[in-house]
């Protein structure tokens, strides 16, 4: 009866059409999941499957090997320098761009994004051109017995370059959206620059800051192409964890390569979990 009334009021078309397309959601969800499974979930599962295929003992031996640990230490060192450096820069850049008006601002914002659009290999190459033996500073460096390329400083520099925009990019839109009223009020009440930064500005952008640092850290620890160009691949000396994986893989030590890869995959999953948590907190705090 209701159906008849409904039909009389609204006409037959929409209801029938809805029924005719009732299969659409299931089909679309299925297609999306198949695509994600093929390109996303399968590779992730493969890392852990290949790493543990020959048993826990082989896995444990692979990740406790001394070259692997040297690689882990270098990876942490490079990230430990690159992330704070880019964090400090990000805050300075966001403060300049969000709180003041000046000419050339949009050019500055574009230039900050530049490293994102440069191929990792090219990012490494440009440092070779500056610090390498054939480069501008190469002869001077070798005279003073200092080495940048094929040594740790080069790896740190390449890591800084590829992670350069992450923090700035998160902070700039956030600080722009928050405006200047709170800071101006604080200044009128007698706050100095330092108090302004620590008591007003940074607490306001706390979650964006953490978000940027998480992404920056993940990229810093996982960078491959740029670091590969400047590293020289000296085992136990200038190999970061991603480069160590490549060497093991090319030596057909697949299980060891996947064991080290699983460490980075766990890092990636932790990154995603933290990121999701920060997004959730951010959403909760903004009414």
């Amino acid at each position, binding site marked *: 009866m209701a159906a008849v009334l409904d039909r009389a009021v609204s006409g037959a078309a929409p209801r029938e059409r809805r029924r005719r*397309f009732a299969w659409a959601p299931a089909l679309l969800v299925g297609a999306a999941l198949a695509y994600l499974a093929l390109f996303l979930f*399968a590779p992730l599962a493969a890392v852990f499957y290949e790493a543990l295929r020959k048993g826990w003992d082989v896995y444990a031996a692979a990740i406790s090997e001394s070259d692997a640990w040297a690689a882990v230490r270098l990876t942490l060192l490079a990230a430990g320098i690159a992330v704070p450096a880019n964090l400090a820069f990000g805050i300075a850049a966001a403060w300049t761009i969000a709180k003041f008006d000046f000419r050339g601002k949009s050019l500055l914002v574009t230039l900050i994004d530049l490293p994102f659009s440069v*191929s990792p290999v090219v990012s490494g190459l440009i440092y070779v051109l500056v610090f390498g033996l054939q480069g501008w500073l190469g002869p001077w460096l070798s005279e003073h017995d200092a080495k940048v390329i094929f040594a740790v400083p080069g790896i740190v520099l390449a890591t800084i*370059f590829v992670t350069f925009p992450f923090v700035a990019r998160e902070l700039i839109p956030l600080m722009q959206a928050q405006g200047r009223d709170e800071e101006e009020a604080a200044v009128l009440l007698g706050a100095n620059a330092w108090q302004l930064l620590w008591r007003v500005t940074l607490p306001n952008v706390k979650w964006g800051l953490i978000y940027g640092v998480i992404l920056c850290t993940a990229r810093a620890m996982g960078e491959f192409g740029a670091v590969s160009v400047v590293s020289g691949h000296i085992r136990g000396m200038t190999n970061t964890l991603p480069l160590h994986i490549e060497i093991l893989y090319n030596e057909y030590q697949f299980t060891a390569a996947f064991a080290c890869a699983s460490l*980075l995959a766990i890092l990636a999953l932790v990154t995603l979990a933290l990121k999701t948590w920060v997004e959730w907190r951010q959403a909760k705090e903004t009414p």
Partner: protein
Amino acid sequence: MILVRRSHSVLPGFGVALGCTLLYLGLVVLVPLAAAFLKTFTLSWDAFVATVTAPRVVASLKLSFGAALAAAAINAVFGLLVAWVLVRYRFVGRRLIDALVDLPFALPTAVAGIALTAIYAPNGWIGKPLADGFGLKVAFTPLGILVALVFIGLPFVVRTVQPVLEDLEKELEEAAQSLGASPVQAFTRVILPTVTPALLTGFALAFARAVGEYGSVIFIAGNMPMVSEIAPLMIITKLEQYDYAGATAVAVVMLVFSFALLLAINGLQWWSRRYAEERP
């Protein structure tokens, strides 16, 4: 670059912050990038042209740009689908999948490379059925490069389109349908025009990322000259032969293209912002 402060502000720190920003930007980014352009000037124009038009270099550039374009196109279609499914439907595991979409941003490229090679190799989980059933070889062919680039670019379109779809009022679509539009018409006439700027931005971002990608590709590509050798690998090969000027010439071609694409992306983002503001 002329940086002039336009209006007076009571806030402190402009000079110091701007100075630090420019100094750091200059030392870390601009000076090394300038080095690349200056290095190419050590080559004569003819030598530069000869380097970048050598058959092996041209083949690698074509492959990098072609595969990146194809991967970005695949991601545009399926990224829109994934974004749509995540926004419109409720199913078990939706939040988990939403979080995992960003995996390619977080997973180091070398890890992605060996994992994709393992499953798409002729004896892998997906490679074996494809090889046995269709005689299709994925890993160690240009098709493998495509797979790696699809993985790398997967989150871009999803993440640019998703917020636009979330803001889209369902009433608009329902109004179209009650006026007699079929769901397909409602999609092509109402939804698609609204998400187009975001879709193009995501496409361009995925494309830009894929052109320069190195880590995930070299493991799965097979790296055969003229067939499956990408442009970044060409640069590495030239570097290993101590041909710095040649490596830089290829790098400059890629840099010029990336800068043009960056400008295009900025333009697109400006367009999508304006588009969003114009809507009531």
